[in-house]
């Protein structure tokens, strides 16, 4: 089929080839014709392959335009879903998964903790101390209802910032509500075990943090 098509195309090309030599096209007009054929956007025009990252709302916005027939498709032409989300983010210099390590340029304190962004109700963060890698990785567990955690090895303080979707005020939150306690999603009714951050004396605590649970 491939060979036949090529032979047909060859024949067509030969058939329509003008016998009378035409005047050679000047460079500028041929460039204009090519631009028209390819459908490339002019400067300032939006590219149909390139959806601006800010305009993405749902999965629907991550459907690809598809490649032109007869070309080799690229990832930008036909990738979908999360893969496309990542590529479109990268093209605007945005790391959509936020894969960089946490800020380790300083040691977190209770007044000025290292902020850990989290889209969920619970977040683990690995502390390696300050300077970086000065102790083995210690995993700290932060929750929405107890966002501050302090490394038992180096004393660096971390605070989880919830950046997920806002809570539905009408939704039921876990089992804690039945007992009249305040809990995040999936919370339980038993008391959380205390952590190192719970035993800091009040005089060392400085200004209390907004989500910080007073013991």
């Amino acid at each position: 089929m491939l060979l036949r098509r090529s032979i047909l195309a060859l024949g067509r090309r030969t058939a329509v080839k003008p016998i009378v030599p035409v005047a050679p096209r000047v460079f500028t007009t041929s460039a204009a014709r090519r631009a028209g054929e390819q459908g490339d956007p002019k400067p300032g025009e939006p590219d149909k392959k390139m959806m601006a990252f800010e305009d993405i709302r749902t999965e629907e916005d991550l459907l690809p335009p598809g490649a032109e027939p007869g070309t080799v498709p690229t990832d930008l032409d036909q990738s979908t879903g999360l893969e496309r989300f990542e590529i479109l983010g990268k093209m605007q210099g945005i790391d959509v998964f936020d894969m960089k390590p946490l800020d380790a340029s300083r040691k977190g304190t209770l007044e000025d903790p290292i902020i850990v962004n989290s889209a969920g109700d619970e977040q683990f963060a690995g502390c390696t101390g300050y300077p970086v890698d000065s102790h083995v990785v210690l995993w700290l567990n932060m929750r929405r209802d107890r966002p501050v955690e302090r490394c038992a090895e180096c004393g660096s303080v971390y605070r989880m910032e919830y950046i997920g979707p806002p809570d539905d005020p009408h939704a039921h939150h876990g089992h804690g509500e039945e007992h009249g306690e305040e809990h995040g999603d999936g919370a339980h009714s038993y008391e959380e075990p205390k952590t190192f951050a719970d035993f800091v004396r009040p005089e060392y605590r400085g200004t209390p943090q907004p989500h910080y649970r007073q013991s």
Partner: protein
Amino acid sequence: MTNLVRSNFQAHPFHLVSPSPWPIFTCISLLALTTSGVLTMHGFSFAQDFLYMALLLVIFTMSFWFRDVISEATYLGNHTLAVQRGINMGIALFIISEALFFLAIFWTFFHSALSPAAEMGAQWPPKGIDSVNPFELPLLNTVILLSSGFTVTYAHHSLIQGNRSGALYGIVLTVMLALIFTGLQGLEYTVSSFTLSDSTYGSCFYFGTGFHGLNYVAPYIIICLFLKTKKIYNIES
């Protein structure tokens, strides 16, 4: 992008696979293949019928599993760069294990050929073996093999450059050369005077060339699968 919109999409780049029947199906069919293979090699009655059925079962489960992976990659977009890195690593490890497997095959050959044991007449090829002249059919097959390496590299680089017809011609030529190579290898098997059980020479010969042939047929099947995928895409031009 607001955090609210960001929360519409998965927060991490990793692909947490959904429950799938294919791993256990593959296990069962591979067990059937090994068992019936052993029974066949020991001459059990009707074992060969079961061998073919098990082989079909393996091919079926592979096809279904690959179909799911292709759907996840192309339609669902689950293969982010982090996932692609893992897949690259998997292919690299597969190629390394293949290379070491062939190292073992060559090792058996050199072990037997470089200092032939007294039981074989202290000579290589062993006494009574009418060996294949390497400057006849094997030389032709070597030329075809290297040519197919050239055409597939041509297809690869055409693909990188966005030259679609070059990529397709390269692949079609490679498949044709693969078919010619496999045919000539089959011809060599039929005309050779020794069998798999004729001394270590026969064992080494059929072990090496047989697995090499298998490695040559597998990419051919994969290429056929790719062409089938292209059909699923409904790309007509």
